[in-house]
């Protein structure tokens, strides 16, 4: 599976896709990048006169790269399609924030797998800004649910 295929298989689209590219992937590790375009809708409201990327959006970006993209790669030989026959859910995140991310900043997300068992993926994930400073780091986990979200 190529890095481009991973991005294409993500079950998100505009305005909620926060992955531009995957730059490295292996059985234990993934890195990816995203640039927060200044025209993203939430900047109009967070905050008034002071656009700054909401923490929840940073967490979402970290999860899309660090958990979901890695999970897609790990299950590449299995018949799971997050757009049709299975869903994912975030189950835990324990994160600390260190730096703000302003409009037009590019971030790099690095994820190191702790385990992927019984469809639960747990990973240490960090986000760096272009200066290489840690923006946010934490331990995240998500679970894959075969079948659609309501079943």
């Amino acid at each position, binding site marked *: 599976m190529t890095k481009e295929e991973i991005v294409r298989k993500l079950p998100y689209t505009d305005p909620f896709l926060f992955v531009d590219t995957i730059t490295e992937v292996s059985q234990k590790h993934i890195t990816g990048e995203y640039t927060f375009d200044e025209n993203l809708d939430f900047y109009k409201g967070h905050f008034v006169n002071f656009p700054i990327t909401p923490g929840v959006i940073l967490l979402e970006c970290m999860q899309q790269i660090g958990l979901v993209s890695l999970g897609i790669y790990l299950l590449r030989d299995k018949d799971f399609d997050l757009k049709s026959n299975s869903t994912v859910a975030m*189950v*835990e995140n324990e994160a600390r924030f260190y730096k703000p991310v302003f409009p037009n900043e590019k971030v790099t997300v690095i994820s190191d797998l702790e*385990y992927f*068992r*019984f*469809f*639960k993926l747990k990973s240490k994930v960090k986000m760096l800004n272009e200066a290489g400073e840690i923006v946010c780091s934490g331990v995240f*986990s998500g*679970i894959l*649910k075969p079948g659609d979200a309501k079943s």
Partner: protein
Amino acid sequence: MSQDIYPKLKEIIKPYLPEDVNPDAISPESHLVTDLNINSTHLVDIVLDVEDAFDITIEDDELDKMETVNASISLIEQKLAMR
């Protein structure tokens, strides 16, 4: 042997109980999901803790053999016997 397993298993389960479930509610007959309200992700945590505590390996397709406390004890016994 199950007499030794039960208290150990109970201690493993306790931290994963939802706040509104009293640890005294755990009994050998308890169904982890329907009786104790443990969610699927914590079920995975319990399995991983069981593996560490008893030094056994539970296969990915054996998760459904741990639905109740009693069933879990049987599976653990079976795994210990196989070692």
